[in-house]
């Protein structure tokens, strides 16, 4: 309130938002805005002040003036002409004219849970529930009926996810806008055509159906196709970003990364908190007893993990929770590392990202960090100049082409992914 008063006293344009702020909420006994008033605003109301109308919640603001009209029942009552105001249309209905805070109710009335909380929007519990009725409006099954067409409107056990008065036989002419352009038997109202999609028909780099490609670094070949990896993936070919070819004997173990409960993402927030850090104090690699026996590693020994991108050291946590896989008659071992450790903070550890390659999923360019191949060398990681010799021995970099993987495009060539022309592949002529 002090800030609003200051803004009102100034004429600086930067204070315009504060001046325009409608901080009307009545306060509770602790001097805080009443949360129910905020919820009422989120629900939405008619802006015209009708002091005698029913269904007005918190009609008076902090200064005792009438503030708004009756609550709207549902987002369908919202209009684009200023006669209604709503904080979040999907929550419209949570605190409507009946004065019941539906978000706080805990009495289920039916198996769908009506009466227990508010399921946005409009408290409908099953999306696209028009699909539970045949194209002509009758339920597919009497036993499992959910919504149906009756007495010129849609009705049922759930709130219909459909325009209530649209007849099942409605067919649009072709020049309508919005939901009026959907047929009466098209339940998937958030799709442009109102139909369910078995595949995404446009705007994806790959598809239309899901299929199987191997990760960019894999111990095996693709059994489904002659091509191992996704043809439109972004490789970002650089000397520092090499991928090992499939089944490379220099990197025979599968590596995956995972989360720990005690840490959060890259650890920047949790490694500074003592009560969390003491629960997982060191970087470790989980491996199976079979692999540990084979490499003569004892539980808690330091081991080095090396990939074509870099190397780290970690403690070995030997556990039967990790199991070797048998692929094509061969045993392939897998190991797993958490990715929460890094160089900064009171609690430090080697970072998993040193092993990971940069790549880009075809559509959203998220990189592949969960499937890599690596090698494991017992012992501590050398430092300084010794480290350079060491890594040259286990992950040779010099004298190698940038694209070791047979499907990785060479330096400078386009990779097939939509982002390869923008980033990565520098030194390309065009």
């Amino acid at each position, binding site marked *: 309130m002090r800030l609003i008063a200051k803004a009102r006293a100034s004429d600086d344009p930067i204070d315009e938002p504060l001046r325009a702020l409608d901080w009307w909420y009545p306060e509770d006994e602790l001097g805080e805005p009443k949360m129910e008033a905020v919820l009422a605003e989120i629900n939405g109301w008619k802006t015209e002040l009708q002091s005698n109308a029913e269904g007005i919640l918190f009609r008076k603001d902090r200064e005792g003036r009438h503030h708004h009209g009756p609550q709207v029942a549902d987002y369908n009552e919202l209009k684009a002409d200023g006669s209604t105001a709503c904080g979040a249309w999907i929550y419209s209905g949570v605190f409507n004219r009946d004065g019941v805070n539906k978000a706080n109710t*805990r009495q289920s009335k039916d198996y769908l849970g009506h009466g227990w909380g508010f399921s946005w929007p409009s408290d409908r519990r099953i999306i696209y529930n028009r699909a539970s009725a045949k194209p002509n409006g009758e339920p597919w099954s009497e036993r499992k009926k959910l919504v149906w067409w009756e007495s010129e409107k849609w009705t049922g056990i759930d709130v219909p996810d459909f325009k209530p008065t649209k007849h099942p036989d409605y067919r649009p002419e072709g020049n309508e806008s919005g939901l009026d352009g959907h047929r009466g038997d098209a339940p998937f109202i958030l799709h442009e055509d109102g139909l369910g999609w078995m595949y995404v028909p446009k705007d994806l780099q790959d598809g239309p159906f899901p299929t199987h490609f191997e990760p960019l670094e894999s111990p095996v070949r693709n059994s489904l196709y002659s091509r191992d990896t996704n043809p439109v993936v972004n490789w970002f070919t650089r000397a520092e970003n090499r991928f090992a070819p499939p089944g490379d004997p220099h990197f025979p173990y599968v590596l995956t990364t995972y989360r*720990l*409960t*005690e840490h959060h993402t890259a650890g920047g927030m949790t490694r500074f908190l*003592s*009560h*969390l*850090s*003491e*629960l*997982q*104090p*060191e970087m*470790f690699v989980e491996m199976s007893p079979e692999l540990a026996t084979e490499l003569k590693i004892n*539980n*808690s020994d330091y081991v080095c993990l090396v990939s074509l991108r870099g190397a780290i050291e970690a*403690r070995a*946590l030997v*556990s*039967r*929770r990790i*199991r*070797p*896989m*048998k*692929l094509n008659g061969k045993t392939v071992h897998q190991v797993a590392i958490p990715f929460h450790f890094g160089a900064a903070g009171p*609690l430090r550890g080697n970072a998993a990202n040193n092993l990971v390659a940069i790549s880009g999923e075809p559509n959203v360019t998220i990189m592949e960090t969960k499937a890599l191949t690596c090698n494991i060398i017992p012992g501590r990681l050398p430092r300084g100049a010794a480290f350079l010799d060491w890594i040259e021995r286990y992950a040779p970099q010099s004298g190698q082409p940038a694209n070791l993987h047979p499907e990785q495009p060479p330096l400078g060539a386009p990779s097939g992914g939509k982002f390869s022309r923008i980033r990565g592949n520098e030194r390309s002529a065009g």
Partner: protein
Amino acid sequence: MIGEGIESTNQRRHSYVGDRIEVGFFTDPTVCIGCKACEVACKEWNQVPDDGFTWSGNSYDHTGHLGASTWRHVLFLEQDRRKGDQITGSMGGLSPQSATVSPTQTNPQSDDPFRWVFVSDVCKHCEEAGCLEACPTGSIVRTEVGSVLVQNDVCNGCGYCVVSCPFGVIDRRPAPLADAGGAFKCTFCYDRQKSGLVPACAKVCPTESIVFGRLDDLRARGADRVQHLQQSGYDDAQLYDPQETSVRGLHAFFLILGEPEAYGLPPKPQIPTIYLKSAWTSAIATAVATLIVVFAAFFFFG
């Protein structure tokens, strides 16, 4: 119970302290997810200092055991056994049994059983508490709700409670931690309970593996749970609440899968006061005998 929402005994306010009702913890590892929220919540509420950033190599348990600065400790047991009717199995038929069985005949339930059990350990708040009887300053007392509480302003750190606990719970906090020198253990969040709140660990447990409530209710609930589990294939589920020993039962009791030894729990804990009679008899007899011998020595040789 989980699913009761804000009506659960882990969430709703109560008046157990004023009504002098005995409360307890029932800890059920079959629903514990090993998240350690109980450890963190306890430390946060009670401002317990951290006690070391040391790697243990014992699965995900780097806490080790209960102590002066760890009042909740989650155990992580990796065992070669099944957990109830869970489907277990290896990847690609690796166990010796299946090596001789054709791939179509692998029985996922029998080969390669393995389970990972999590259980949150805490001060047991014994019905007959060794630490309480041993404390010479009267610092350790029994509260209205039946818990065992250390009054830290009275405790002078003599350390006798440390060797008197059959479960190895209480300890003297070493320097340079904050408030060093005193004995510390779980307070059962007595300060929270006095205000009608629930202990921090029970409040925060997301699966209600730690259940807080009236002790008699919890014991009934525990017995039901064991029965239910045994009917679901957990044939090694049992309650750890040694009422038949001199400890006479725990206010914080556990359901465990398998034997107590695997959890570091003594199978037959005893309160050390049962040893007093024989020890004092020996002491008094020695004292009297010594007096007699000394006088006899002067009488006969003096």
